[in-house]
């Protein structure tokens, strides 16, 4: 009889811990709250940092690397932008593509962020159902001049990080991955995957000299 009681307690314990885990899963942040948190965090950091406001790109690059990139599914972005050539690329080529593309985007994003002065981010009402594994969060950056529409495509990553990761970005109606898809296709058609890697590396080199 002791064993039966013990067994029942054990089952109850297992059930309870499963419920707890389930609830932690459901506790993943809402996607719009997630975007708001990250956006506000980044903007506030820039506004408070004098060096960044004066255009210290190096510091902003670091900010983007540490506060934004962990929330980005960069492999998916690169694979989408490279297109059918991705699967034919060797793992080494894939890694180099990812690395160079990352440097390019981080630098570009940092350049855009260096112009932040007193902008605020407004999150638009979320139009998605709770079961969506992928959705779009629309935001608007208001402050200096006309408002800028900034939309994010998110994929659900339950249990990982904040539960959501960014895999595409839209500024004023222009999707990042789509634009780079044609940029990359042009290079691949002309010079192949290695040619694309070289072009990216060359572009990054030129950009780093501009600082």
């Amino acid at each position: 009889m002791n064993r039966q009681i013990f067994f029942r307690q054990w089952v109850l314990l297992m059930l309870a811990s499963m419920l707890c885990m389930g609830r932690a899963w459901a506790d993943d942040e809402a996607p719009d709250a997630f975007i708001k948190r990250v956006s506000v965090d980044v903007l506030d950091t820039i506004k408070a940092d004098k060096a960044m406001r004066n255009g210290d790109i190096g510091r902003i690059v670091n900010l983007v690397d540490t506060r934004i990139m962990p929330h980005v599914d960069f492999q998916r972005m690169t694979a989408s932008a490279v297109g059918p050539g991705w699967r034919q690329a060797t793992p080494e080529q894939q890694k180099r593509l990812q690395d160079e593309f990352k440097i390019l985007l981080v630098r570009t994003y940092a350049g855009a962020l260096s112009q932040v002065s007193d902008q605020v981010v407004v999150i638009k009402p979320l139009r998605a159902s709770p079961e969506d594994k992928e959705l779009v969060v629309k935001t608007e950056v208001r402050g200096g001049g006309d408002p800028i529409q900034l939309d994010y495509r998110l994929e659900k990553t339950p249990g990982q990080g904040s539960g959501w990761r960014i895999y595409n970005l839209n500024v004023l109606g222009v999707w990042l991955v789509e634009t780079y898809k044609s940029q990359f296709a042009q290079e691949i058609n002309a010079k192949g995957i290695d040619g694309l890697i070289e072009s990216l590396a060359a572009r990054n080199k030129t950009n780093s000299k501009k600082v």
Partner: protein
Amino acid sequence: MDRVGLRVKNHMARTAMGAVAGLLCLSSHALAAQADPRDPFESFNRSVYSFNDSLDRALIKPVATAYIKVTPHWMRKGVTNFFGNVGDVWYAINNAITLKRQATGDSVGRVMINSTVGLLGFIDVASDMNIEKHPADFGLTLGRWGMGPGPYVVVPVLGPYTLREVVAWPVDYTGNLVSYVHDIPTRDGLTLLSALDLRASYLKAGEVIDGAALDAYSFTRDSYFQRQRYRLYDGEEPESPEPAP
């Protein structure tokens, strides 16, 4: 006389052959690269783009940069707001004839508030009241009425457009209040100032694009088409499913 006639004919024949050869080269070059169906004049457009870029770097960008340096921020803001108000008048009309109720209401409201409280538009009171701007030129109106954008054209000095927008220019001209100014030097001065204001507002964006693009021409073109589509559908464009990598 016969010899002269023969020489002229020879010369003409050679020129003609040269022209045909040149055209063949151009068209074969266009075909060799991945032809974008939206850009049938790509070779020509690239040349014009190149020219515009050189002109911009040599002249327009330095002038716009100097403009920013020598004018106080509040004055530039006033200029931007003034021309923005002039624009809102035309936007209101275009939004009205395409039956966009919210946009028309907002645009009319903006004009009324900014022209009065905003002192002829120099102060953008309406934006402080969160009344949105809804840019809409006649090119957009044609698009809303069902006209396709047509081929991509890069216009000398003026930059990238689609044929639909170019066709709409004369109508846009009649909708621009500045064109009704009688005194020609004033009218030209205002036109130049508005162009300068526009260029200055895009200086930073231009720098970002310079660093971000592998090929500035196609980057500009693809962004242009995406942005045009976005504006046509008011940000609610039908989503095309993303193919898996």
